[in-house]
């Protein structure tokens, strides 16, 4: 979708500039949950909090006071960010990441027969009557990515293995 060009105001005089910037356009504090509007903040229940902590593999709060603090913070955060829900974004494609979204880039990134010709060349056809494709199992040289001390940074290990001590029921 092409950008819509705005009408822009040329500022010719320095005095005009003073005037223009004299009046603020909005207040960022409006995003904060004011003390009085605290009741409008989204309510998070203790259950929800504990669920989120579990999902994040973070420990449960040590006492009621710590838990209340967590709930308050989360509530304030949600109030701060929640205002975007009022914005009408119908028909807008989400922007997931900054990357080349042009048609030319898509063509360049397309995986074609040519892209994979080396891999396909590593296959052979076996069989005289019942022809089947088989990938030739050659030795793969991956030294450039495999040659480093994989276990060298681990505090605990057992021989060539990493170790986890878990008494939890297994799946």
């Amino acid at each position, binding site marked *: 979708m092409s950008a819509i060009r705005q009408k822009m105001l040329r500022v010719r005089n320095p005095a005009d500039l003073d005037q223009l910037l004299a009046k603020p356009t909005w207040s960022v504090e409006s995003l904060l949950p004011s003390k009085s509007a605290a009741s409008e903040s989204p309510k998070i229940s203790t259950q929800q909090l504990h669920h989120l902590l579990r999902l994040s593999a973070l420990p449960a709060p040590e006492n009621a006071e710590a838990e209340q603090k967590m709930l308050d913070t989360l509530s304030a955060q949600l109030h701060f960010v929640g205002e975007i829900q009022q914005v009408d974004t119908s028909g807008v494609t989400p922007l997931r990441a900054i990357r080349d979204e042009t048609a030319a880039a898509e063509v360049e990134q397309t995986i074609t027969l040519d892209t994979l010709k080396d891999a396909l060349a590593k296959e052979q056809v076996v069989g005289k*009557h019942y022809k089947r494709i088989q990938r030739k199992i050659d030795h793969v040289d991956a030294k450039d990515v495999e040659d480093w001390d994989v276990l060298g940074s681990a505090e605990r290990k057992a021989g060539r293995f990493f170790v986890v001590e878990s008494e939890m029921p297994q799946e």
Partner: protein
Amino acid sequence: MLNQLSRTGHATFARRPYICQECLRRLQSRHIRSIASPAPAWIRPLSTASDDRTPPKEDAPFRKALKDAAKKKRLENRGKAQSSDNPSGSSEFKSEKWELTVGIEIHAELNTARKLFSSAATSVNDTPNTHVALFDAAFPGSQPHFQRETLIPALRAALALNCEIQHRSSFDRKHYFYQDQPAGYQITQYYEPFARDGHITLYPHDFPGGVSPEGGPVTIGIKQVQMEQDTAKTIQQPPSTHLLDFNRVSHPLIEIITLPQIHNPVVAAACVRKIQAILKAVDAVTAGMEMGGLRADVNVSVRRRDSADSSQQSHSYHGVTGLGQRTEIKNLPSIKAVEDAIIAERDRQIDLLERGGIVDGETRGFTQGSKTTRRLRGKEGEIDYRYMPDPDIAPVVVGKDLVQHLKSSMPLLSDDVIEMLVDPKRYGLTAKDAGTLVVLDDGDRLDYYLEVVEILRRIFSEDFAALSRVGKMAGNWVLMELGALFKTTQWSADRVSPSELASLIAHVLRKQITGRTAKLLLAQKFDGDARPVDQIIVDEDLLLRPLSRDEYLAMAQQLLEEKSDVVRDIVEKGKHQKVKWFVGQMMARGAEGTVEPGTAEEVLRLLLQLPPMEEQRQQMKK
């Protein structure tokens, strides 16, 4: 005639006792006198005349008792089979009232040289933690490198399952903490998988016994096929230690998700079996379920057919509506486990619902050999995977030319091959044998079989009678005979070359050697005898000669002299059916295939001075 029997003819049977010709003549004359008289009672058709066939009147209750006992045993056995199938009530009653719905999710390890998101090598049982890139171990600052070659087996698998390949697809992170998941998330394709909307059709030949439970072919929809990473391998050291090997992390997997359109455990099992076979046929996977290369999860729900209580049946999965609450049974390691687990879970749910309970949406497990499923994760352990598109990985765009090339170079799929093999005009194998042949030794056995048949067809190109038998015979020799020899050895097409086997079979077809001889020859070749079959036959003088008339007479004579009591039965008591017994004896005594039953009977009747078979039949008709 007997007097014409030469001493030399007797030589082969020298060990046999001598029959007094005078006694034989006396017996025969009595016999002939009996025949001369008008049809005595004992000449009537055996069914009424034979005393020892109809049970004596006094034994009737006993016989009935026997029959009753047999019937009871049959019913008991069926009942037992049903109860192992279904503890409370017969399965027919249950399936009338309840409909089972099953969806399957299969995870298969792809046949690739490198991993999905790093260029480290894939491996099976190498030294632990030797094929691990920085990203595989989720080291800080490392990023995914999508290996495009991994698309090749993935695309082939999806095409073989009749899917639509999506032009664009993307990868998402599925978050959960577990010791085998180093990044705390698995990279999968949740929102935009690379293939959608496929299907698989199960034909009667795909089912045990060649019978489809639904009468005809069953088509099951495939919702999507997605690519994802495999996890680390864990070695448990009880009580609570887990040793981790990251070689397997990021090994490419495809996940195949069927629509919940399966209504029978047998169909589910056949579906898994067939998907596995298809994946192997297109070289998409290296190892099957038995090697851990393929795992199945099933989703099971039940609903009442009369939908009396629709509140319990308001669930919809993958667009299929009106279903009951489903449970998931994970990590089934074999096809039998798939079938057994579905049966166990179906029964558990039905029992629960019939007692007024509610089925919880939960994840369960099943151990082979057990009767029930067990809960793995309950509601409080419910995991929210928080699927998030991976911001580091660019969308995958697949070119049409690549898809077209893979489609056109697809190997023949099993259905087409089986159709060809069971066609009586082409190979004439049974569905069971065709099915076996297609999967044995990754298709090498089939290739061998086809070569053997081709050679035989050339040999017998003018002989239509032989041509019609070639397919079946070759099938028997390749599957049964060679199969038995290769039971503990890895298949090799060079052990007994196709031309040698064809030569062997040709000899049998031409009745030049007996079947038994051929089997021995095969074993000899298998054990390493380098001589061609032709030569061995000549060297060891294995060629069959058909018996001469004199040899028939001599053999018959010998036999009659040995079994004078049976002769008496025939001649004096008129038990002519025992001539057949003599025929059988002659066939048993002669080298296999050398004694023609027709000729044998003719000779025997002659010696016993009975009318030839034709005449006897005509007499009986009167």
